[in-house]
């Protein structure tokens, strides 16, 4: 059973992400991926995360696929125009990759090549439209394809967006365009997230809540100040600040969030950002 079938069957799914390295040494990344074997339902492979030039998502998805792990190809609109996006989608299809997560992408100036020209030829909603068009057997302007791809298309939403109504409006458009599941920005405040889920419940689309592992109180405060839509409540920051063992406390916090999310949404999406090796411990503690 793949991710699509598990979600359709109502299973509480778990996804986690790995980030391709800057360079060609994939040893550590593949170790991280191996640790997830049998523990998660699919693995997101990020697409030049944080706008930093590195190994791409597509070849890494292929490597995972070859090793019997189910990848989710993250695809942003930052670096490729409509020709390149469509071509890479065909490439993904012939490599047997089924899951695609369509994102707008971080802005280029946030990464290590701020001089780059940001592309954003199409937006995430358009990208979903394009995927659906390819599935229908033509390219986005209607030229016939010899052989059409088939994908399971996901998208993202920021439940802490400002205003959140605009985020939900865009979420609806993504569904209308053809998105079948959502992964969210990191959630730390369960009651705020519960309110969000109540509002999007009528949309009847599976939502996987984002989980970021807190590395320190400083990281939590940094995210509150600088990461759009992320809010770590003070008691959690306090817990991290006074923890004798930060890793242990971080794992406990994440596990507790996951347990709390079980009744609220259809799954969780872990973003360990450097703490990939701690994911199994989080899942153990969350009894998943």
């Amino acid at each position, binding site marked *: 059973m793949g991710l699509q079938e598990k979600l359709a069957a109502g299973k509480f799914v778990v996804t986690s992400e790995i980030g391709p390295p800057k360079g060609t040494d994939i040893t550590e990344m593949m170790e991280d991926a191996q640790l997830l074997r049998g523990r998660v339902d699919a693995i997101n492979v990020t697409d030049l995360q944080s706008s930093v030039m590195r190994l791409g998502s597509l070849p890494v998805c292929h490597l995972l696929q070859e090793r019997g792990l189910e990848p989710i190809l993250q695809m942003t609109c930052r670096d490729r125009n409509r020709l390149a996006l469509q071509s890479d989608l065909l490439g993904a299809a012939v490599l047997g990759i089924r899951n695609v997560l369509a994102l707008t992408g971080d802005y280029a100036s946030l990464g290590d090549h701020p001089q780059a020209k940001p592309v*954003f030829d199409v937006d*995430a909603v358009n990208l979903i*439209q394009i995927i659906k068009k390819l599935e229908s057997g033509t390219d986005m302007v209607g030229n016939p394809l010899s052989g059409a791809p088939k994908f399971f298309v996901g998208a993202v939403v920021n439940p802490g967006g400002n205003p959140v109504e605009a985020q939900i409006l865009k979420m609806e458009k993504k569904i209308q365009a053809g998105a079948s599941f959502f992964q969210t*920005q990191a959630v730390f405040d369960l009651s705020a997230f519960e309110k969000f889920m109540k509002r999007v419940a009528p949309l009847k689309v599976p939502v996987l809540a984002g989980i970021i592992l807190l590395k320190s109180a400083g990281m939590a405060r940094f995210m509150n100040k600088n990461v759009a839509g992320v809010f770590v409540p003070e008691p959690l920051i306090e817990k991290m600040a006074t923890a004798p063992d930060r890793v242990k406390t971080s794992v406990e916090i994440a596990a507790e969030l996951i347990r709390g999310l079980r009744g609220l949404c259809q799954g969780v999406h872990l973003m360990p950002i450097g703490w990939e090796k701690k994911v199994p411990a989080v899942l153990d503690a969350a009894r998943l």
Partner: protein
Amino acid sequence: MLLSQQKPLEEILRSLEGEEKIFILGCSGCAEASGTGGKPQVLEMKEKLQKAGKRVTGYSVVDFLCQKALIQSRLRAKAREVQAADSILVMTCGVGVQAVAAVSPKLTHPACNTVSLGGSRGEWQGAERCAECGDCVLDATGGICPLTACSKFLLNGPCGGTTKEGKCEVDSEMDCGWRLIYERLEKLGKLDRLRKLREPKDHSKALPPKGLRLSARWALDRVQ
């Protein structure tokens, strides 16, 4: 000198769907020179709209639709006609449409596509920017251009990067353009405008016709 071209009438009528009473604004600056928004074109448009079953509550031709103080005083002079209208059709460049939207109590519809700004940001420079895309989308966004107000030129709504303060994650000094669009349409009671899926933009329209590219004074020459 800003060069514009009138949108096809069908597109204008489509954008006015559901709006029965229209006030028309023309510009006797560059739009007149372009032959797209001077008095003759405004009168012509008035007739076309009436023929299509619209009621034109009034019109005004302003010297420069990029000059917000001037727009305000002209709208005030025509307050009754403006108030009676559902929305305003603005026959000028993207800068002008945005300037009108910034000071108008009504939803604004662009009647023109801006082909070239000729290096200018309007004869009266304000905060409004036009991207010369040749396929104006201001109709859907409450008169705030998503190509210039959003760092990522998004057409279908905000990315996840609006900060708590409502700024853009790319630049904390810059307002999130999509927050501004959302707030303005919410204030105008026109949020339904945002629900329509916008197709990928046709960037080939941004290329000015060869004749315009060869001569920046093209439009002026035509009036003389």
